[in-house]
């Protein structure tokens, strides 16, 4: 209260301009802090606290099916995890899934963006149509693909495959095809994102460099390699970082399409953590798996950010 009195007095006595500004800035900061506080607390309560609680839980044996065995076990869950073959399999599946979807998204997205840049008419329409898959819920996308597209004998993809002479395939029942299918679904849904970002970036590239390159008789491929790609690099790296973080923690589409099956062929780490926690009711071990996923995500995005800064 005392400060307020002084400041009012200072304002009233028309304090020197710099002082006045400082006081005002201070008050503004305090006001901003007051405005931010509820959001900050909400953020703490909804993100930081659950995260800390997750880490805390991972140090316990917490098995709803056998409550009499519950208790503090320190790092035992992590030791079990390191020896758990299914953990390593699911980590590998996660990495393959993430690597291939992100690569496909960038390649297909960039190809589409280059194509659309050259379109004389209908660009606007194309953009609207292209963005549609992104706005669908992954669970809905999963259901659509599972029932209408990929069902052998009954689905559209299988119909096309039969007509193309490939024969009917068990898209979701065969371990390799199931992996290909979930990668294709994720890529189908998220390529538009890469496409939009890269298209925006392409549109902002300076025309005069290309003009100069053409005068120097650079071929289209040379122009792409020497000019377009380096200039697009920040955008591409951004897309890679954002898509990697999302793909590592993908869940809904895979859950609805294969639920990790057949067997464990498409069981990404996130899905394994979910199954351990909520289907098998081993909350402690499930938490340890979730923490492992968090660590993997942090490491990979750390590397990507470092790559972004390098050069």
């Amino acid at each position, binding site marked *: 209260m005392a400060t307020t009195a002084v400041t009012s007095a200072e304002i009233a006595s028309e304090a020197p301009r710099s002082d006045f500004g400082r006081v005002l800035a201070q008050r503004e900061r305090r006001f901003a802090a007051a405005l931010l506080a509820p959001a900050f607390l909400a953020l703490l309560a909804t993100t930081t606290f659950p995260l800390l609680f997750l880490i805390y839980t991972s140090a316990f044996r917490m098995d709803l099916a*056998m409550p009499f065995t519950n208790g503090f076990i320190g790092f035992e869950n992590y030791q079990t995890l390191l020896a758990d073959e299914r953990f390593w399999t699911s980590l590998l599946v996660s990495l393959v899934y993430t690597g291939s979807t992100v690569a496909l998204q960038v390649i297909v997205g960039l190809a589409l963006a280059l194509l659309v840049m050259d379109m004389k008419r209908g660009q606007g329409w194309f953009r609207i149509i292209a963005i549609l898959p992104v706005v669908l819920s992954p669970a809905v996308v999963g259901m659509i693909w599972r029932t209408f597209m990929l069902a052998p004998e009954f689905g559209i993809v299988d119909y096309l495959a039969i007509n193309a002479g490939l024969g009917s395939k068990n898209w979701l029942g065969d371990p390799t095809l199931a992996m290909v299918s979930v990668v294709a679904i994720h890529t189908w849904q998220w390529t538009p994102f890469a496409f939009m970002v890269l298209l925006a970036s392409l549109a902002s590239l300076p025309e005069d460099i290309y003009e100069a390159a053409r005068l120097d008789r650079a071929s289209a491929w040379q122009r792409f390699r020497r000019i377009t790609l380096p200039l697009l690099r920040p955008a591409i790296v951004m897309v890679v970082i954002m898509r990697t973080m999302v793909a590592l923690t993908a869940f809904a589409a895979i859950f609805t399409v294969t639920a990790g099956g057949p067997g464990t062929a498409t069981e990404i780490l996130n899905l394994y953590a979910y199954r351990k926690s909520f289907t098998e009711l081993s909350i402690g071990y499930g938490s340890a798996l979730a923490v492992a996923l968090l660590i993997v995500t942090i490491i990979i995005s750390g590397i990507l950010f470092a790559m972004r800064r390098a050069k």
Partner: protein
Amino acid sequence: MTSFKPTRRTLLKTGTAAAAFATLGPAFLRQAAAQDADLAPYKSAQIDWQQVSGETITVAVIPASYFENLITLAPQFKALTGIDVRFEKIPPAQIRQKSVIDLTSKTGTYATHAADPMYYALYVANKWVEPLDTYLNDKSLTDQAWFKFDDVIPAWRSANGINGKLYGMPYDGEVTIQVYRKDLYDAKGLKPADTLEAYMSNAAALNTPNDRIWGAALRGVAGAGQNMYIYPSIFREFGGDWMKGDKLTVNGPEAEAALAWYVDIMKKYAPTAAANWNWPDIADAFSQGTVASYIDAHSSASVINNPEKSKIIGKVAYARWPKGPSGKRTTSIWNWGFPINSALPEKKRKATWLFIQWATSAETQARTAHKFAGPTKRSGVNRTSIWKDPDYIKLMNGFGDNFVEATMGALQDDTDVDWRPRVPQWPAIGDTMATAIQSALSGQATIKAALDDAQRRIEPMMRG
């Protein structure tokens, strides 16, 4: 500020009036609908239905017609007991998790919920639910002569009991039976299979994918209630035993033979897509005429007889599960039952019991089945007496030839309380087995390897 006051007041007034109308209006109408005559059959019970009047309880059910019918009768329950019931509809895939979370945290959100019988072992190990005999034997709470507990189908009662004690009252249940196309069977001179071997050869005889007809279909998608709903019957019919002494065993020669039969029929005579199918997908394919026969819950009969979608109405007949090499038939004894949440205060527990008694009584079962005014009728009533009621039999036989005989035969003679391993660790075991079965079906692992791996994973779960 003053200029806003009239507006706000008007708003408040209209709002309150609207809210009052919205909540009280329909309630008033519904109350009016529950006439005294409606309640007479309940009032003949020698108990004070109004003893905990004023209580409110929340009941979690799944969005299924058999529960919807019950929900429409809730105003009668309110008029009878003065207890308010708030229903929460949760899809079957989530209701287990939500109720487990509620029971663990002891918040008592759900006074009772539609419970999976496989979860009672877990509930009891944690003392999350009440033994129901306390309530059944309390003369102030239950009129035994009126409630007729013995009339409740024994298979489902035993499924909801642990060590001879009942923990959940069956509300609606099912058995697995053979469903087949009698026109196709007749054309080839086939009879419904009496053995698993005959079922396989029937499937072989009818399998003509070029005409878009497949011989058979069983649940293929992985899950404790999916492929692990069908496989346990086969395992038991091949002479398998879940518990060998104290040890839970999922591998061994019987298991290998059972899984080999399952993989064989699915690979040779089921549509390839069935590897990813659950019962609604199978019932849809059957109702479109692409599957000649399937073995699944008898309750899927209502889907294949849906006049808006089905192309095979009038061509369906039923038979019991085929016998296995051990000479046994083993059907599912699955049902949705109502337990009482132990975390509730005493008055609410009483209110919950009154609700359970009302919902599972012969009178309410009849009112939600053949006596129900709406279009959907139940095929899983919990009372032997209703299964013998001519009106109910007439309604059920509309599903096809031999429906009531096959279902009743299965319910009375083909049940096996150890159909699936009844241990608290079931959620984990069921999921592990489901994954193993699917990896064998997809060729990711050999039958023996898949089962041995499941055994390796299950052993530490049992050791605790």
